């Protein structure tokens, strides 16, 4: 093993029933480097990490770590931790019933005379959180924190553990730019301290911002390892996808002029609110329009759409759908009025883990049709096949349980679920979270196509750039309140930033 290498994986293979997730993959991590692990959805990035950290067993291959002349096999995350590997997995893995502080310190609680020293634990947690600019009291229960905060906590936990190797599997998927920047500062500091960092992300800018080296996987196979500076963006994308791709195409361009001018409102909300989460707001969404919601983390974007959809029943205000005043008590009411809602927390609110891809796709349509009008087997299979093809969902078969799909592919299934209901108004809360760059562009195109066909869309994303590309109008939220709207000319990176920060429009 070379001097400065901390981790070396050779010839790793891993099969799941019916899927070859990894085949003969090599991976080398050096001391004090940030190493990006890239690949499309389902390329095997998470699997490689789980093999390394003992979540999955693997069929063949060897793993070496610095300071250990023998090959190691981690049989559990616990062993991996003991071996100096600290991990943030793709899906947030924390305990909802414990406090923030406990989630940070479980398994390594500070103790005094054998007893857990709660006071010290809370104090240390407070400091740790503060150092990362996370503003939650350490004594708050985790399930009262937003998904973004949870992700930050998971990161805080991992970085606080003394480790040789730090693994971050899509840590930035729910974070906004500010948070991401904070994370990068932290990562650079750790790198300078000599920690080897594996970083998985689908955001190319982020790769080029912090990474020293890139390993690309495709369909479970190693494509190659590169120095970041030697690999231009376009090349990277080509390596990932196995074909040339121009991700910077202005997809909005060809759609712009086709826009319908005379507005035909689909949704008109007046004074809608939900106690404790979102203050009364007005919003109008027109046919064929993509409207974006922007704001800082926790500004109430999700809460706004949840109030419209009836996921949290609105306490005050009125809602008109296509000009008719309606009362929405349950999501089903909203669906019957032609709404569809893709929730942001995929694991908790999106997937129905044990059901197959097919069942996950048709469930919303089935619910809408009612219990006594079941879809025939053929209808279901056709629908499933259609969206597996359309969204390029990587799955062993349509009968595979959704839980064994990669994160990004799960997201696509959920998207397919809603498209199948053929809605008039589609709400997308972080629809491209964890989706690879190729598919992301596909989805953005799809959204614009749908809008062209007359669908009203609300698009929420932490990625301002993405929103700029898709949205024709944006609403700005701050502290659970809608503070303004941006149109046409104001739609630029700087314009949005200014509005979010709440500069001069106050």
């Amino acid at each position, binding site marked *: 093993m070379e001097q400065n290498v901390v981790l070396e994986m050779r010839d790793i293979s891993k099969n799941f029933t019916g899927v070859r997730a990894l085949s003969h993959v090599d991976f080398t991590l050096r001391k004090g480097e940030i190493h990006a692990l890239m690949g499309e959805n389902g390329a095997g990035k998470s699997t490689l990490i789980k093999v390394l950290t003992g979540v999955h067993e693997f069929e063949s291959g060897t793993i070496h770590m610095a300071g250990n002349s023998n090959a190691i096999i981690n049989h559990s995350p616990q062993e991996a931790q003991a071996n100096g590997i600290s991990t943030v997995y793709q899906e947030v893995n924390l305990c909802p019933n414990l406090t923030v502080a406990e989630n940070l310190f479980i398994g390594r609680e500070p103790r005094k005379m054998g007893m857990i020293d709660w006071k010290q634990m809370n104090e240390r947690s407070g400091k740790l959180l503060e150092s990362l600019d996370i503003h939650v009291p350490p004594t708050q229960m985790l399930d009262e924190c937003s998904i973004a905060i949870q992700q930050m906590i998971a990161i805080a936990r991992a970085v606080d553990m003394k480790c040789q190797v730090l693994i971050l599997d899509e840590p930035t998927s729910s974070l906004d730019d500010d948070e991401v920047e904070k994370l990068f500062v932290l990562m650079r500091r750790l790198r300078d301290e000599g920690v080897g960092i594996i970083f998985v992300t689908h955001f190319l800018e982020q790769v080029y911002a912090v990474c020293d080296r890139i390993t690309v996987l495709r369909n479970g196979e190693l494509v190659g390892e590169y120095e970041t500076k030697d690999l231009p963006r376009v090349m990277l994308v080509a390596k990932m996808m196995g074909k040339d791709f121009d991700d910077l195409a202005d997809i909005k361009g060809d759609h712009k002029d086709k826009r319908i001018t005379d507005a035909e409102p689909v949704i008109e909300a007046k004074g809608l609110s939900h106690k404790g989460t979102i203050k009364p707001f007005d919003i109008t969404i027109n046919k064929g329009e993509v409207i974006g919601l922007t704001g800082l983390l926790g500004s109430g974007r999700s809460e706004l759409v949840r109030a419209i959809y009836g996921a949290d029943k609105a306490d005050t205000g009125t809602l008109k759908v296509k000009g008719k005043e309606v009362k929405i008590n349950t999501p089903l009411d909203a669906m019957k009025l032609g709404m569809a809602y893709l929730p942001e927390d995929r694991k908790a609110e999106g997937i129905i883990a044990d*059901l197959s891809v097919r069942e996950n796709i048709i469930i919303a349509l089935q*619910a809408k049709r009612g219990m006594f009008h079941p879809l025939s087997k053929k209808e279901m299979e056709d629908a499933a096949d259609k969206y597996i093809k359309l969204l390029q969902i990587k799955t062993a078969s349509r009968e595979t349980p959704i839980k064994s799909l990669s994160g990004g592919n799960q997201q696509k299934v959920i998207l397919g*679920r809603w498209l199948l209901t053929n809605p008039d108004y589609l709400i997308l809360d972080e629809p491209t979270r964890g989706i690879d760059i190729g598919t992301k562009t596909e989805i953005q195109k799809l959204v614009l196509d749908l809008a062209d066909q007359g669908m009203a869309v609300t698009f929420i994303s932490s990625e301002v750039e993405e929103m700029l590309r898709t949205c024709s109008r944006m609403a700005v939220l701050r502290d659970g309140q809608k503070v303004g709207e941006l149109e046409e000319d104001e739609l630029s990176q700087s314009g949005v930033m200014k509005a979010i920060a709440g500069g001069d429009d106050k």
Partner: protein
Amino acid sequence: MNKSKLKKITSARLFLPIVCLIAVLLLNVIRTPDFFNVSIRNGVLYGYIVDVINRASELVILAIGMTLVTAASGGQDISVGAIMAVAAAVCCQILSGGQVSVNDYQNPVILAVIAALLASALCGAFNGFLVSKLNIQPMVATLILYTAGRGIAQLITNGQITYIRVDSFKMAGGYIGKCPIPTPIFFAIITVVIVYLILKKTALGLYIESVGINGKAARLVGLNSTMIKFLTYVICGVLAGIAGIVASSRIYSADANNIGLNLEMDAILAVALGGNFLGGGKFSLIGSVIGAYTIQALTTTLYAMNVKADQLPVYKAIVVVIIVTLQSDVFKKYIANLKAKRSVAAEGGQK
């Protein structure tokens, strides 16, 4: 080709439950060679195996309801035995018109049966309300009727065993006319078929699974979780009512203390032996049915082997542990590893 077919069969969900049932039955052939003998005696089918199928009927009916409840709410209804007693009490009390023992019906049978089923549906609705509307944990919610149910049944019968000595009443637990097959078997088959058809012909099965796996997600895709959970409890209650009527017909009386006693545990066991996860979600109705027959086969076997009733639980426990161990993923994995090793060794040998 053949191998892959075999593999397909062995990896099917119901494979292990069926193997377990067969294993228990084979155990008998060794100990009691005439276990599978079926003859016609006195105009009816006669033999151990007939007893097994006959005696398992109530358990099968209960296991179906238990499967649905388990799938939707991730918990079990431990009040089914008590609900059986309530249904039996209502039915017999109406038929007897309040007397302790009658030789003729005092009221129409149809009235009694409907009232009994209504009462059991009501019990199920009560459980369902507590679980789905008030979010009380199933085992605790049903604990209420588990303790109160037999009290209610006794209240209805005034603490006495009410006898209905009418031949037509004995039919549900005995034989219809000259038909050589015991009637409870028909009850079991018909209930299984009806529930199976309902699940097949409507989307209820999918709804139940979705709600059981991820209630939050199910709500967001437009399912009414509350209603669906509630419904499974009502169905479970009604099925317990049917089982109660069959059980009371067997003994042509309403014995509030003993009808369905400890049957809830067997029903839960049947669900588990059928390869179902007690934490809810995906379920297999047929698996539970097989589980129910396995349990009854075991009981009858042990009786046939002259095992004392009080020691019977020991053997039952051992067999249950063996079965669930065989079905456990860890064990399956272990076997798979073993096989893989052996095939590697064989390959090496060939070289």
